[in-house]
């Protein structure tokens, strides 16, 4: 599998994601500079965490105007599989590739700690190895992860089964005590209608090795593995809507 990891100036989880994809999972990984104009030939694209362009403006706002994001629109329109992690999720929102927006955390501060998220949708390339309702323990590290969708957008999200993950406690229950940033409806991750594009605030690449205290994040990458393996080696354009059970 060939995975492209986008590097914006200020990305800082690019090397961590590269390490997991290549050294832990054994796939081919390559960095994709933000000025690249095509993503053809990649089995999946990951937008890693960090502070693209410093994020002095709204997080992800400047990165969303990069050439690589224009290429990503074409890639996604063709059914290309894309994951946005943390800052990468923020970029996908700012680019309009996923619905909704991020506000500063309700606590007003950066938060780096482990949280629990519940899997809400399993027919995506990043959740197909997981069970609905399954609880993952993953780290977060962000200052702007307070997800918001206005009422019509939120209704559409629910109708289209676009909520991929929700913050919860260890038992899987949602509630104010288990919502680290004040996200609307406890939303921690969102998928595109087909499920091919997924964004989430927690960092699966930080929880993919037992030595670092957890391997739940690896399940998300394992899903991608399974998804790509199950896909017929046909033309990339025919990828959209592929079901894997």
């Amino acid at each position: 599998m060939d995975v492209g990891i986008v590097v914006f100036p200020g990305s800082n989880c690019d090397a961590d994601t590269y390490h997991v994809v290549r050294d832990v999972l054994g796939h081919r990984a390559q960095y994709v500079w933000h000025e690249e104009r095509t993503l053809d030939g990649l089995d999946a694209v990951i937008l890693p965490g960090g502070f693209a362009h410093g994020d002095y403006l709204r997080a992800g706002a400047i990165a969303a105007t990069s050439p690589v994001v224009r290429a990503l629109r074409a890639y996604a329109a063709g059914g290309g599989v894309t994951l946005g992690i943390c800052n990468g999720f923020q970029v996908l929102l700012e680019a309009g590739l996923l619905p909704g927006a991020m506000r500063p955390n309700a606590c007003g501060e950066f938060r780096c700690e482990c949280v629990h998220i519940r899997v809400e949708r399993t027919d995506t390339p990043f959740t197909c190895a997981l069970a609905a309702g399954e609880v993952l323990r993953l780290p977060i590290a962000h200052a702007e992860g307070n997800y918001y969708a206005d009422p019509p957008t939120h209704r559409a999200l629910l109708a289209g089964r676009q909520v991929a993950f929700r913050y919860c406690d260890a038992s899987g229950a949602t509630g104010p005590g288990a919502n680290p940033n004040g996200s609307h409806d406890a939303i921690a991750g969102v998928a595109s209608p087909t499920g091919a594009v997924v964004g989430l605030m927690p960092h699966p690449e930080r929880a993919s090795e037992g030595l670092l205290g957890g391997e739940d994040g690896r399940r998300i990458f394992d899903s991608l593995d399974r998804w790509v393996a199950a896909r017929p080696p046909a033309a990339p354009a025919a990828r959209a809507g592929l079901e894997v059970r």
Partner: protein
Amino acid sequence: MTVAVEQTARRSETRAEAGLFTAEVGEIRRRLGREPNRVELAMFGVMWSEHCAYKHSKAALRRLPVAGRGVLQGPGENAGAVSVGDGWAAVFKMESHNHPSAVAPFHGAATGVGGIIRDILAMGARPIALLDSLRFGPPDDARVAPIIHGVVSGISAYGNSIGVPTVGGETVFAPCYRTNPLVNVACLGLARSDRLATSRAAGPGNPVVYLGARTGRDGIHGASFASAELAGDPRDRSAVQMGDPFTGKLLIEASLEALATGAVIAIQDMGAAGLTCAASEMSARGGLGMEIDLSRVPRREDGMTAEEVLLSESQERMLLIVQAGREDEVLRIGRRWGLEAVVIGRVIVPPRLAIREGGTPVAALDPRSLVDAPVYAPAAEEPAYLAEVRRVDPATFPPAPPRAALLALLAAPNIADKRWVYRRYDHMVQTNTVVLPGADAAVLRLKEAFPRGLALSADGNGRYCYLDPQAGGMLAVIEAAQNLACVGATPAAVTDCLNFASPERPEVFWTFREAIEGIAQACEALALPVVGGNVSFYNEAEGAIFPTPVIAMLGVLADVRCHATPGWKKDNDLVVLLGGGIPRLDGSEYLATVHGITAGLLRRPDLAGAVRLIECAREAVAQRLVSSAHDCADGGIAVALAECCIAGGRGARIAFALGRGERTDRVLFGEGAGRIVVSLSPEGLPALRRLAQRLAVPVQVLGAVGGRRLVIGPDDGPPDPWIDLGVDDLAAAAQGRVPAPPSHGAPR
């Protein structure tokens, strides 16, 4: 070049121009054989500032051991470096940003992070971890709360964005830091041993390249400002730099990429004293000179004078000497990362710093005369307060009820959980952090040299140093080494940050010399080289701070998978105490928190015993003989046991032998004895005993892990234990009170 000035007189009498003493201006005239022009005098002013020149500390610092096995770079470069095996070098250094953080907490702390990162970068190393050692006044003081909030926000904003994890440190509170906080930041980097960079200029004709952010008017005279007492002048804010972590991140990537080409001969950060310092130090180290044209320096604003350009401490700038003919390669890399990358001069043979602006000469100085500032031998005199505070006998205070005292200690700001601080720092980025903040020391795996790992700890105890700076210096080194041993690491090297009041006062300088003696003796006992460090004097705004030497220590783990953390792991594990020193209440946190006094007579630690205990604990962890390990520090063994319970979510039943007439508070809360609490399965005890016996370390079985309560009592005493508290109650107490952020947002 040493000027014998026996004793510097008071600053008010003698500071003449550019922050220099009158005698120093005379010395400059003598060296030049002429009057310095205004710009030249300003250059001397910053280069001969205490901050840059270490003129009051240099002689005393020679006492520290700098050589040792594995040392690749001792003091004298931008940071120290030690070999950690497999051809890899750990580069590390600690620096203070106290004065800037006092007047502009957010930017002062943020630029403290940025500055130390670039020192590591200048060694050719990728920065992989940060630690910060912070001192504030009481957190509920209205003057202090905004400083705490600003400093923590500044570290958070800079460290998180630049992508270097803040993996540990310490946060300590005492009234003496009320208006003079201490912000000491350590950075660790990793480089190939054979690819370490240097700041030594070489190759006449080679271009001098400016890389990074533009030069602005911030931080002008920052070095001089940090070399005098804080006067509370709001104009001092202009001496504080503004940090931009985004550009800092670009600069890391661009510099490492440029270094990887092999075209870079030398590199240095333009930090304190800016371009002046970088150009003169690089020239002097190479025994060469430089021609520099200031008109080529990229600027943030129009109308800057030559002096401003030379002295600006604008952040995120590096100066490089590049192989002639290959400058375009380096310039292209810089521009690809969106940075300013310009040739501003070239290396020349005569040892002369020839600065011009276009066609106009600005300054012509021998770089060695700028770098070789006068070295002073300040007078030292034992402070009068010592006799008084040492006369206090803790035995004259009535013992506090143990249960209430333990809860009060757990809630004390110095001991309480610091999660409210470290959850604001990204401590996981780079995915190497194996032991997270909150343990005795941070542990990092090395992806490049697996299964090797590195551990880091930062420790200092101003209270101890106030009572006995020599003992305090020793105890800081020992505690750092014990912390490393508890995670299974072998102590390898030290960098220090020595925070003191004005060295021009003999009673302060005496404490400085004593602390260095203590650090030196402890490092010698542990065979640890001090590979770098930093001195911050003039920490007195409303009054002198406690003498506060902070020790950052690097440790190496042969197999990072064999590490330990403080929390109990399994019910029915035995709780065992390693080390048999006698704890004392003198200078303890208990005395400060419960009885409100910092006094008493410290005993000098048994260094040989400490060395054996450290080796025993490290070996026990590395061989996986124990399931947990935790150092007994502030608050004594009772607090250490409570912390093991909280971290492990399990209780324990503990029994102590109590001598006749013995005070329970001394047994429970006494400090300074060199003791480590471990837990292990009962079957493992014989192996631990054999190890301890070989190293002549006393072993005492205290009890066992289990249940949801911590119960501590005498082993043959009455059925009523001294302490019987639920683990949840301990955890609730240790939550402490999180200082409320100021209502009007962060001071920025």
